[in-house]
């Protein structure tokens, strides 16, 4: 991805241009359900959103599926936690105040128009976050001038080290492709103890909320592939574009399904930056 940009930087310097074009694209007639399921240890995050795919150029709002049967099954007991559609959130919410328990495996079930979709996830133990600090830093290579946050904590686990940090700046989720913060233990986890610097320049007075998720590998892979796809510019240095591999299976019916099911603990921290 970066190489592609470097190549284009070279090419731009030499003579390249960009413009918007209208391509005649073949469009899929059937609309594919997109399922986004979160099952966490915080009730506020627990929801299942089901929407439908659309034509590429279609700029209308998302179309939501309101009439699906949705439940999460606790694998050890076989108990069903049922969900109902809530107009206010445009998602399915659990009917009870139950939350995910560490060590338990949960199975998401969605039945819609004769199609049955399933996904599973193991609720993992959360790491610990000790503190979040900030510093005002001058402009550096790859970094603008501004306040930078560092997260200090401990990750004592040997396996299943797949993490995501979501950053909410003044009630707005940072959700540009370059805003994704996903990390695993490929480069060790000492960085978390020494202070993981978030690569965003914040401004004075900003209220920043951080959400740390510990994901199952399949959900982490889904998000990694999603980010790769968002960065895929269709050029020679990008791999052929592919849909991220969903961890949701079609167990009955012949339709496709898109999206993911995330079972994860969530740790949140909030910081308000100084006025100067």
């Amino acid at each position, binding site marked *: 991805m970066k190489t592609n940009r470097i190549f284009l930087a070279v090419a731009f*310097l030499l003579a390249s241009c*960009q413009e918007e074009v209208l*391509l005649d694209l073949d469009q899929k007639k059937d609309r594919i359900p997109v399922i986004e399921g979160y099952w966490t240890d915080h009730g506020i995050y627990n929801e299942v959103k089901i929407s439908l795919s659309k034509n590429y150029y279609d700029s209308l709002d998302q179309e939501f599926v309101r009439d699906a049967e949705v439940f999460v099954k606790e694998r050890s007991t076989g108990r069903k936690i049922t969900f109902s559609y809530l107009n206010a959130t445009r998602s399915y919410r659990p009917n009870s105040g139950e939350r995910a328990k560490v060590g338990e495996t949960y199975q998401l079930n969605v039945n819609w128009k004769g199609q049955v979709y399933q996904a599973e996830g193991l609720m993992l133990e959360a790491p610990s976050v000790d503190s979040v600090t900030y510093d005002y830093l001058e402009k550096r290579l790859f970094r603008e001038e501004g306040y930078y946050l560092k997260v200090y904590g401990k990750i004592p686990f040997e396996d299943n080290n797949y993490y995501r940090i979501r950053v909410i700046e003044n009630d707005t989720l940072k959700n540009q492709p370059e805003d994704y913060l996903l990390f695993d233990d490929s480069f060790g986890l000492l960085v978390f103890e020494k202070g993981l610097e978030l690569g965003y320049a914040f401004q004075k007075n900003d209220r920043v909320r951080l959400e740390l998720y510990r994901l199952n590998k399949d959900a982490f892979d889904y998000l*990694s592939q999603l980010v790769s796809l968002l960065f895929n*510019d269709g050029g020679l240095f990008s791999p052929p574009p592919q*849909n*991220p591999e969903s961890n949701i299976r079609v167990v009955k019916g012949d339709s496709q399904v898109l999206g*993911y099911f995330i079972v994860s603990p969530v740790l949140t921290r909030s910081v308000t930056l100084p006025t100067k």
Partner: protein
Amino acid sequence: MFFLRSLTIFFFFLIGFQVFSQEKKSVNGQVLDAANLQPLIGASVFWEGQAQQGTTTDLEGNFFLQVTALPAKIILSYLGYEKSIRTIQVKDLEKVQKFYLRSEDFSLEEILIEERRGDEQVKNMELGKSTLSMETLQSLPALFGEVDLLRSLQLLPGVKSAGEGTAGLFVRGGSADQNLVQVDGAPVYNPSHFFGIFSVFNPDGLKKVDLYKGNMPASFGGRASALIDVAFREGERDRFSGEGGIGTISSRLTLQGPLLGEKSSFLISGRRTYADLFLKLSPNPDIQNNQLNFYDLNGKAAFNLSDKDKLSVSSYQGSDLLGLDGQFALGWENWVSAINWNRVNSDSSYFDLQGYHSRYTYQVKFDNEENGFDWTNSLSETGVKAIWTRVLASKSTVFWGIHGQVYHFAPSDLKPAPKNPITRRQTQGVQGLLGNAFVGITQEFSDKLTAELGLRQGVFAQVGEGKVYQYPNTAPNPDVDPSDSVFYEKGELMQRYQGLEPRIAFRYLLRPDFSLKAAYNRNYQYVQIASNSSAGLPIDRWVLAGQYIRPIRSDQFSFGVFRNFDQNRWELSIEGYYKDLDQVIDLRNGARILLSDQVETELLSGRGWAYGAEFLLRKNKGKTTGWLGYTWSRAWRQIDGISKDHPYNPRFDRPHDLSLVLNHQFSPAWSSSFTFVYSTGQAVSFPIGSYQVDNQTVPLYSDFRNENRFPDYHRIDAAVTWKNPDPGRKWKGSWNFGVYNLYGRKNPFSYDFRILYNNDINYNPSDGDLVSVRPGVVMTYLFTFLPSITYNFEF
């Protein structure tokens, strides 16, 4: 056993010919350019009145011509040179006869564009081979005025490019890493600069390039698709001289001359870009402080040790550097060296010994106390090759030899800066040994029928030290942890493969100007790049065949019709081929391999096939020269796990491909060149819809790969050259004015399917208020109407 038996029979067959040959006599000679004592390759040699039964000179200008009766007049002719006639007596057979041919005066009627015989393409055994002389190459219009070896080859039938402005080659449906690019016999692992916009090598330092599109003699091997055999120039032996050029983005200088008298020579050639200087002109300080340059440096020294022995030493070094703000740097470098010893044992026996070493390194460095790192990697190949050649009187030539190769792929090593808390990542190194034995014979069965038969046997071994992970009851995949690993000591055999590679070619001469040819070739390839992008990157991961990665096998069947017209002024060839590939690899979705020791978990393997027809009409003589090439071809891959296991076209599958190349000499001072290229657009995947997930609008793709096409690609390039027509001047200068993409066609480099804010492709949502948000398509295109100017000189 079958192989050993076949080899034994083959050698007996050869020995039989040798015994027979003892009774025949021939005259042994060498043909040289009188001006610079360089050997003339492919000169015609025949007895007076027997032009149809002659021979041609080899790479060193040597020939052997069978004697019928003496004394007799021997005639030597070479296009663009004055004919030489000499009477040969019996006593002349005892020593090597030297012939010095003089260049004809410059003539507008006969412009030499290739150093080869007029009827070469009809009479030789070559199918799927193209030769480009440096004269031809340097006469073509070029991007930024930079004469480019590999990009010029893209103008030949059967050769595709990855895309606009890239020098990568895809030959007859093969991938870019299935081409062996070698210079003076030594492989070059990354033959590109600036991410493939330019290819390596300063053209002034080169002698010629041969492209073998799959059919190659048994003495070559190791790659599944093609051989690009580049030869460095030797220096002149009679005088010092120089040449060079000052171009739009780079300058070149070549110096040459005798080294230790007339029996040795040197040539040194360099090229350096100065793109950095343009960066300084930018008003943006972020751009001003960047570095962007490459250089090429090559040298060759040649020594005639005796009348029978010649030794040459050559070396090439080329490097790229891209630096940002003095803190971040990406650099890569090829360093290739070769030594060649050629010996003429007797009037019918030659021996060639070659040693080489090729090393490729790259480095990515971020100079920062807390977040910095230094990531390096290198790979090398060292080889020795020996070839014995015998010219037999029974109208046959045999050769046999051995070729040993040692691969060393060093660990990829990412070292964090002292205060950077990330863990150092280091892959394990990989070593491989490849031994090849080969034998071949060219046998003229009659005046019309000639066959070339060859066998190459390769034995490959991956050797320790190294570690192989075990995945019981399952194929390696990233969701399964290995159950165990096996460690191999240094030199210990880890995995072995072997393969017999037959090479068969026939030529049937229907008429002196009309021939039919057919060939079958098998090749095994034991190294390849694990990548799924279409263009090569400097940090690409090369992998060796091992326990989980099998060698690629390639079989190619080809057939051709070759016809010359109007006393060899026009050449026509039509060739067809079918190629079958096994064990080609691709990557899983989201594969991460650059710093992984378990590359096997990220790879998928399968088969490929390609077929096509190539048409080439070429004019080599006259004021106007050039060629028209057209290719119809298809390329396919079928790899389980990709495109729902269905066959799909790789991106470079471009069924129709046409190129027209014209050069015209208006006067001794003015000449022009023109190229037109057209090809079907690249095979790509366009979205079939979109959806929203994780607060992102994401393009939806089909499960089937590359079902869509870019628009057709076409463009015209043109150039005009003026050179001082006064031949008496010591300093000869010339100006070249060129335009790339003359009519400014916007050929897409890429289509980016993304969200557009405020109907502006450059608007960033964090810049301010949002008025509109919608999906769009942004096309990037490169190089529309790009003029260039180059001043070339000789002294």
